[in-house]
C-alpha cells in the first residue's frame, strides 16, 4: 500500500502547517497592508504608523496662506463708507469680475444654476429659495423678504423690485470679512447696521433692549480674505431662523469645533475650512442644490484635475479601511456618513418638530428645553421639539431630493402611516393616522445602484394649507411693505396673512385654510466624528436597531425568517428529544445479563 510510505504524522502536520500558513498570511496582510500607490489618503498615512490608530498623526493642520496683498494699503479702502454697496463699489475697482461671477451663482440668484436647464425641461420651472421652494420652517420666501434675505449675499432684496443686475448690491464682506465683526441685521434685507442710519445701534430682537452696534466698514473692508468657517456659518449655522434650527449638523460650534465634533474642521486638528470640500471656482461653490446632487461620481479625485471634492471618496478613495475589507464592502450600499456621524446635533440642539397651528397663544409661557436657551414655544411660531445628541433616522439617498413646489396638489386624506412606515415618537409627535405631506422626499431604495443608506434629520411639523385648492399655502409672516399690517407677526390672523402671502406670490387661495402634517428630509453630512467614534457593527446588525425601518433587503443580524428558524430549532430539539427517549428506552428495556 502506498499510504504506508507516507509518515503517519504527515496528514495532521500538513493540515496544521496549512492552517498556520493561513493565519500567518492573514496577520501579515493585516499588519503590512500594501499602500495603494494611487491613493494618498489620510488612512494611508495611518498605515505608515506602526501602531495604527490616530489617522491624524503625521498630518499637519492647514496653516492659512499669507496673502500677497495687504488690504490696509489700498487707497480705495481708506474711506468712510456710508453703506455696504459703497464698499462693494470699492472692491470692484480691483476685483472687476467678482460681482459678475457671484451673480451667476445660487448665493445671488437663490436659484440652482446648474439645474436650471434640466429642471426647466423637467418641471417647466426654475427652482431655488427664490422660486417654487417651500419648506416646513418659515414656509417660503415671497412676502417675507426682508427677514429671509438677511442671509442673501446682497443688499436690499426687500421685495420683488430688487435689481438683480446691480453689481454694487453684491455683499462681498459677508463671505470675506476676517474681523468677525461683520453681521447682517436680521430684518435688514441683507444690510448690516450703518452709522448714518443708527448711530447708537439698532435694537434686536425688538423690545429686548439689546443693540446691534453700527459697523466700522472701513476697518472691515481693509481686513478681508478667503472665507472662513465663521463666514459661511454667518448664514448656514442659522438656517431656519435660528442657530442649529434647520440642519442637525451645523451650528456655531462648527466655527471652532473640537475634534470629536468634526474631525476635518477641528481647530486643533486638520482645521479644514468649508471650501476645502466645497471647492470653489469663480465664486461658484460646489454643493447640492435641491434636486441636483452635490456630485455625480464617488471616485478618488485629484485637486486641480477635478473641481468637486465633496464625495468622501475624492480624498479617502473607495477602499478607506485597509485592514477591514468587509467594511470597504459596505461602501456600495452604506454611505460613509452612516457610520461616521454617530449622532446628530451633538453639541447644540436642533429642531425636529414645528407646529405652526399652536402659534398665537399669548398666554402660553415658553419653557426652556436645554441650558443653551432653546424654548419649546414661541407665540409667533408655535410649538417645537428640540433634540440634542440623538440617533438620526436613516434613509436611502442617491444625492437627489424631490420637492413639492408651491402650488403643487397635495394628498390630504391618505393616512401618513399608510405611506411611510418610519417609526415616530422620539423626535416628533406626528400622528400616523392623519395625512402628511412629504415636502421633499428621497425617491429611491435598495435597488438604485446610486442610492446608499444615509443618516438624516427628518423635520416634521404642522403648517397651514388650502383644503379647497389642496395646496400648501404661503403665509405672510414678516411685517414689511404696504401690507405690513396683514402679516401674522402683526395681526396674529392666519386668514389675513395667508391671503396676503398668496396674493404676493401670485397663487390662488380659496379663502379657507386648515392644518396639515408635513415632513422634510435633511441628509446629514457634516460633523464627521473621529475614527474611534464610528459606529460598531451591532449598532445596525441587530433586530430593532438603527436600520430597523429600512426594507427591501436582507441584513445579517437584523433579519431572519420565522419559518426557517422555527423548523431549524425544531429539528435540533427533535434530535435531542429522540436521543433522550431512545436512550431512556434502552436503559428501561435493557436485556438482563447483556453486557451492553
Amino acid at each position, binding site marked *: 500500500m502506498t499510504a504506508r510510505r507516507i509518515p503517519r*504524522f504527515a496528514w495532521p502536520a500538513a493540515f496544521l502547517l496549512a492552517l498556520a500558513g493561513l493565519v500567518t498570511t492573514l496577520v501579515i496582510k493585516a499588519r503590512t497592508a500594501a499602500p495603494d500607490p494611487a491613493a494618498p489618503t489620510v488612512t494611508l498615512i495611518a498605515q505608515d504608523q506602526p501602531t495604527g490608530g490616530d489617522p491624524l498623526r503625521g498630518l499637519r493642520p492647514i496653516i492659512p496662506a499669507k496673502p500677497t496683498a495687504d488690504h490696509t494699503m489700498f487707497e480705495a479702502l481708506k474711506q468712510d463708507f456710508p453703506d455696504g454697496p459703497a464698499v462693494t463699489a470699492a472692491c470692484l475697482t480691483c476685483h472687476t469680475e467678482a460681482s459678475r461671477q457671484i451673480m451667476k451663482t445660487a448665493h445671488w440668484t437663490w436659484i440652482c444654476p446648474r439645474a436650471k436647464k434640466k429642471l426647466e425641461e423637467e418641471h417647466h420651472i426654475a427652482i431655488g429659495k427664490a422660486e417654487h421652494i417651500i419648506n416646513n420652517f418659515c414656509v417660503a420666501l415671497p412676502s417675507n423678504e426682508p427677514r429671509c434675505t438677511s442671509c442673501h449675499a446682497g443688499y436690499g432684496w426687500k421685495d420683488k423690485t430688487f435689481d438683480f443686475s446691480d453689481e454694487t448690491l453684491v455683499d462681498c464682506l459677508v463671505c470675506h470679512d476676517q474681523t468677525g465683526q461683520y453681521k447682517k441685521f436680521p430684518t435688514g434685507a441683507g444690510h448690516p447696521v450703518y452709522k448714518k442710519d443708527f448711530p447708537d445701534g439698532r435694537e434686536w430682537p425688538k423690545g429686548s433692549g439689546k443693540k446691534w452696534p453700527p459697523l466700522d466698514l472701513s476697518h472691515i473692508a481693509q481686513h478681508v480674505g478667503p472665507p472662513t468657517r465663521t463666514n459661511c456659518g454667518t448664514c448656514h449655522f442659522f438656517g431656519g431662523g435660528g442657530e442649529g434650527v434647520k440642519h442637525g449638523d451645523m451650528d456655531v460650534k462648527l466655527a471652532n469645533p473640537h475634534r470629536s465634533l468634526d474631525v476635518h474642521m477641528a481647530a486643533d486638528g486638520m482645521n479644514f475650512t468649508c471650501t476645502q470640500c466645497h471647492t470653489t471656482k469663480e465664486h461658484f461653490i460646489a454643493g447640492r442644490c435641491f434636486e441636483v446632487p452635490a456630485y455625480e461620481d464617488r471616485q478618488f479625485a485629484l485637486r486641480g484635475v477635478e473641481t468637486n471634492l465633496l464625495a468622501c471618496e475624492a480624498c479617502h478613495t473607495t477602499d478607506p479601511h485597509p485592514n477591514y475589507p468587509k467594511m470597504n464592502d459596505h461602501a456600495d450600499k452604506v454611505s460613509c456618513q452612516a457610520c461616521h456621524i454617530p449622532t446628530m446635533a451633538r453639541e447644540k440642539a436642533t429642531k425636529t418638530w414645528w407646529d405652526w397651528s399652536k402659534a398665537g397663544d399669548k398666554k402660553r409661557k415658553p419653557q426652556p428645553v436645554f441650558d443653551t436657551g432653546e424654548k419649546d414655544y414661541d407665540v409667533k411660531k408655535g410649538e417645537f421639539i428640540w433634540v440634542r445628541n440623538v440617533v438620526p433616522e436613516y434613509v436611502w439617498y442617491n444625492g437627489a431630493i424631490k420637492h413639492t413646489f408651491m402650488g403643487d396638489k397635495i394628498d390630504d386624506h391618505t393616512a401618513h402611516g399608510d405611506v411611510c412606515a418610519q417609526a415616530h415618537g422620539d423626535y416628533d409627535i406626528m400622528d400616523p393616522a392623519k395625512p402628511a405631506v412629504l415636502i421633499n422626499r428621497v425617491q429611491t431604495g435598495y435597488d438604485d445602484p446610486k442610492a446608499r443608506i444615509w443618516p438624516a434629520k427628518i423635520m416634521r411639523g404642522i403648517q397651514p394649507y388650502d383644503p379647497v385648492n389642496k395646496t400648501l399655502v404661503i403665509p405672510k409672516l414678516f411685517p414689511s411693505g404696504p401690507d405690513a399690517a396683514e402679516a401674522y407677526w402683526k395681526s396674529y390672523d392666519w386668514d389675513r396673512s395667508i391671503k396676503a402671502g398668496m396674493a404676493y406670490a401670485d397663487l390662488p387661495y380659496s379663502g379657507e385654510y386648515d392644518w396639515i402634517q408635513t415632513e422634510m428630509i435633511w441628509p446629514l453630512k457634516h460633523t464627521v466624528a473621529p475614527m474611534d467614534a464610528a459606529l460598531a457593527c451591532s449598532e445596525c446588525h*441587530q433586530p430593532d436597531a438603527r436600520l430597523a425601518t429600512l426594507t427591501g433587503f*436582507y441584513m445579517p*443580524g437584523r433579519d431572519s425568517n420565522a419559518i*426557517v428558524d422555527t423548523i431549524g430549532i425544531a429539528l435540533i430539539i*427533535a434530535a*435531542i428529544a429522540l436521543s433522550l427517549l431512545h436512550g431512556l428506552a434502552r436503559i428501561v428495556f435493557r436485556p438482563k445479563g447483556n453486557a*451492553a
Partner: protein
Amino acid sequence: MKRVKIYKRFERFWHWMQALLVILLALTGFDIHFDWGLFGFEKAVMLHKVFAWAFVILIAFAIFWHFTTGEWKQYIPMPSKTFAMVRFYLVGIFRGQPHPVKKTELSKLNPLQRLAYLGLKILVIPVLVTTGLLYYFYNDWEALGIESWPLAPIALIHTFAAFAMIAFMFAHIYLSTTGHTPLSNFKAMITGWEDLEHEAPTG
C-alpha cells in the same frame, strides 16, 4: 474478538477537527444570527470567517485523503441492509439483538451511517460551504454575473443548513453510544483501536 486499528490517524484528526470547527462555526454563526452577545457581531463575523476558511482547508485535505486511500467507498449506500438497520434501532436494540451488519476494517460504517454521512458530505456541507462563500463574497456577485440574486435566500439556506448540521451533531453524539459498549465508538475515534467481532463467522 479482535483488536483492530479501525480509524487511521488522519481520519481521527479530521473527525475531531471537523467537530471542533462545526461547534465553533455554530457558536459564532448563531451569535451573528440570534444576537446572543457571545462574541458580539463584529468579533463573531471575524471568527466565523477564520473558522470557515480553516474548515474549507480541512475539507480539501479530507477529500484528497478519501480519494487517495479509497476510503470514499465506505460511504456507498447498502440499500439491501438499510431496513434491517432501521429495525435494529427501533426494536432490536431494546431486545439485546446483535447488530445486523458486522463492523469490519473494510466496512466500518453501517448502512444508516453510510446514508447519513453521505448526505452530509454531498448535500449539507457543500450547501453550507457554497452558500457561505457566496455570502462572504457578496460584493463580487457582479463579477460572477449574479448581481440580480437577492441575498435573503442564500442567507436563509445557509442558516437552515446550519440548523440541520447541529441537529445531526446531537443525533450523532447519541448514536455513538449504541456501539459494542456505550463508549466503545468514542474510544475508537480517539485511540483508533476497537474490539471487533472476528471477520470469520462465529457460531
